[in-house]
């Protein structure tokens, strides 16, 4: 169901949350930001665990601001799984259904259905302590989805898992979410996770929204330096424009940056002469970092580039000067 908040505010001693979150029906929206940015606070306000100081929350047409959590019909999945350790997998998943007063028969078939959905058939009599981290999170997902909530909230659900499992599970979560068509808010600090999962991303910082848009919009056209730095790797170089009140910077991506031995400055290319500081091999390509007193720029290069530039045996004692070049069409000027 569609989620809308209006004028939502909550003040704490050292932090205040002031952001409105919207998710269209069936949409998966990521709340992305560093720890302490207010993304979890947003989730807890929506879930009813925290009460807002002002503002209102709507689920579909219904206002739920004053409802306690147990009357909101919202599913919640936690980073620490929060499975009930004194119950079996079956009892965990059945918990929400029992609160709804479902019949025993319908509970049994629903739990079986959900265990199939999260690919854990035959797990119903296990106890949480017998499950691996990934299995626990699947059970937690099944438990949250079981009572057919109007909205699903996920609070960094994959943070406690290792990298390989994370990518696998996030695909599964996305598949399940799409299959049920469940409106979902997904909180994460992992920009790669947000880019790969979301219909839309809301980037947050200090309790406020920095930018909201599709993954492509955020990656290609960040509105400000914070978003540019937070999503992907960015080069941010101060513009030489006349000193205005706002500092402005060129924004461009390392993968668009080319390296040359001499300047290629022209009407459609900008060049920066920099001292090569480091040369890093990361598998598919090399990352070159050039610096001067004010800023640094990174560029991707391949084996051929290194040979052409005679820097394969780069020595930090005698660093070469190189030109880092970028097409104007691939740069944006953003405020910092």
């Amino acid at each position, binding site marked *: 169901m569609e989620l809308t908040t209006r004028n939502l505010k909550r003040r704490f001693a050292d932090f205040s949350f002031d952001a409105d979150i919207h998710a269209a029906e069936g949409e998966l929206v990521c709340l992305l930001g560093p720890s302490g940015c207010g993304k979890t606070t947003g989730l*807890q306000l929506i*879930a*009813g*665990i*925290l*009460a807002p100081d002002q503002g209102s929350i709507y689920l579909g047409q219904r206002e739920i601001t004053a409802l*306690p*959590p*147990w*009357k*909101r*019909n*919202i*599913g*919640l999945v*936690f*980073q*620490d*799984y*929060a*499975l*009930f*350790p*004194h119950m079996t997998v079956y009892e965990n998943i059945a*918990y*929400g259904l029992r*609160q*709804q007063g479902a019949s025993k028969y319908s509970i049994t078939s629903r739990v079986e259905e959900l265990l199939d959905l999260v690919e854990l058939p035959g797990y119903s009599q296990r*106890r*949480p*302590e017998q499950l691996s981290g990934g299995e626990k999170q699947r059970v*937690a997902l099944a*438990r*949250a989805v079981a*009572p057919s*909530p109007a909205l699903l*909230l996920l609070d960094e659900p994959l943070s406690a898992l290792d990298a390989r499992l994370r990518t696998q599970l996030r695909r599964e979560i996305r598949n399940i979410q799409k299959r049920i068509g469940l409106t979902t808010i997904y909180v994460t600090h992992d920009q790669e996770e947000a880019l790969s999962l979301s219909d839309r991303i809301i980037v947050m910082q200090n309790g406020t929204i920095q930018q909201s848009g599709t993954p492509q919009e955020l990656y290609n056209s960040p509105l400000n330096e914070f978003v540019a730095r937070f999503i992907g790797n960015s080069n941010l170089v101060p513009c030489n424009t006349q000193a205005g009140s706002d500092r402005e910077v060129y924004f461009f991506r390392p993968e668009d940056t080319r390296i040359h031995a001499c300047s290629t400055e022209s009407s459609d290319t900008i060049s920066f002469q920099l001292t090569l500081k480091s040369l890093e091999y990361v598998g598919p390509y090399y990352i070159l970092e050039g610096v001067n007193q004010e800023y640094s720029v990174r560029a991707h290069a391949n084996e051929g580039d290194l040979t052409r530039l005679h820097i394969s045996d780069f020595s930090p004692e005698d660093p070469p000067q190189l030109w880092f070049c970028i097409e104007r069409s691939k740069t944006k000027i953003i405020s910092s």
Partner: protein
Amino acid sequence: MHLPSARSWERPHPAFLTLLLFLALFFYLPIGSVLLKGFFPKGSFDPSVFIDTVTSPYTLRILWFTFFQAILSTLFSLMLGLPGAYLLSMYSFPGRKLVRAASGVPFVLPPILVVLGFVIFFGNSGLLNSILMRLFDLSEPPLRVLYSLKAIILAHGFYNFPIALRLIASLWQQLPPSQEWAAQTLGAPRRRLFFTIILPQLMPAILAASALIFMFCFTSFAIILVLGGGPQFTTVEVEIYRLAKTSFDIPAAGALSIIALVLTLGIMGIYVKLQNKMAFHQELSSGPVRPRSYNRPSKTGFIGIAVYIAAMLMIVAGPLVAVVVRSLQKPVTRAGELSFTLEWYQQLFSSGAGQFGRIALPAIRNSVLIGILAAAAAVVVGTALSYLTVRYRLKFGRLIDTLSMAPLAISSVILGLGYFLISRTIPDLGRARIFMIVAAHAVIAYPFVARTVSSVLKKIPPSQLQAAMLLGASPGKVFRTVEFPVMLPALAAAAAFAFAISLGEINATLVFSSSTVTIPLAIYRMIGSYNFFGACALGTILVAVCALAFTLFDVSGNTEI
């Protein structure tokens, strides 16, 4: 996870064998001699006394009452402790620290002081009644609790609710709040959340607290002896004392001790079994415990907190304050008007005031001397034992652990009786009597020392010890430079606690050597001769000595005991 001990290859030093000697001589020998008396009343095997005792309706009545009062006391303690555990686990509020600190007070209060405080505070002409009479203008005291079952239950509740509060709160605070939120978003309102998610997970702590409290109330002695006020409210322990010291029927006392021992060990066994059965893997959140409710307590919440703190202060501080206040008062008129005086203290220290004149100095001297020696012995024995069981992987490690913790499960009345039996075989005890008391107190106190020290020793990761050794420190040096400094605060707390236990000990001392003048025994005798003012003055001195010990050892309220 079981980490290999840093020195698993090493054998313990032979000096540790003296520990076994200590246990055998000062614990197993006296206990054994009591049990033998039950079956060998006149030196030869004769089960008739035991059978007579077991089957007599009088014994059965005493047993029934012992169980009955212990169950009621346990329930009452849980009732007092649970709300406090709830408040400490759910809210951050002003006075939180006070509640925690106040709940530690009964752990170190000598039982005789509690008894005295109850008489002074809840008695017919006690502080509470006189306040109520003045407030509501009554001519009769409205509360009549003393010398009844009510007094016993109330005093046991006072003594034991902190156990319930602390054990339950420490588990509750570790339940991750996300579980509550999960249950709530799944549609469970507060009450159902409590019964389906929280209570089942608290059961191990509730059960452990109940078993412990039940044990303490089952073997409680001084409270029942004084507050019960007569044969109507006699429990097994009091009856053992009465048989041995009043009727001089040692074989019957031995027989009853056997029954008591079997029962307490049985309770312990049932408790361990139940706990193993109920123990499921807890997913407790690690890291520092934080107040779990981010929403401020509601208005009713604040009222609840205020009421609980007030009630707790009344129960914990009321009797103590009453003792101190009463020690400074003296009746002026027959109607009970009181005025300020230091007369009772003067009497305690000067001659010519009846049988209790000049009693203070020898009592303080004996108590402090016994306390210091007993604390020193308990610290040495307890530390050595915990070192032995934590650091070395011994073949009979579990057995040694069980054997050395046995004094926790065996009542000090029976221990005192054992010392009494042994002392009868030695013709001229003389000064050795004091040292036997020291040994008895050390036996009673060292399990607490061992538990405190063990919990600290277990927290030192083996990698630290290995690092120290690889950096060139010998095992002795590792102990001096790494382990000992870490253990020091715990040792100081344990020493102060052991001193407090010895200072307040009355059960074993009374049964073994009722003529020795210690502070608790003097107070007991003063209560017996209705010299309440003098008892209060001496009680105040006892509180002062206790407080002084804890201040000297700089014991913080957070030390685990």
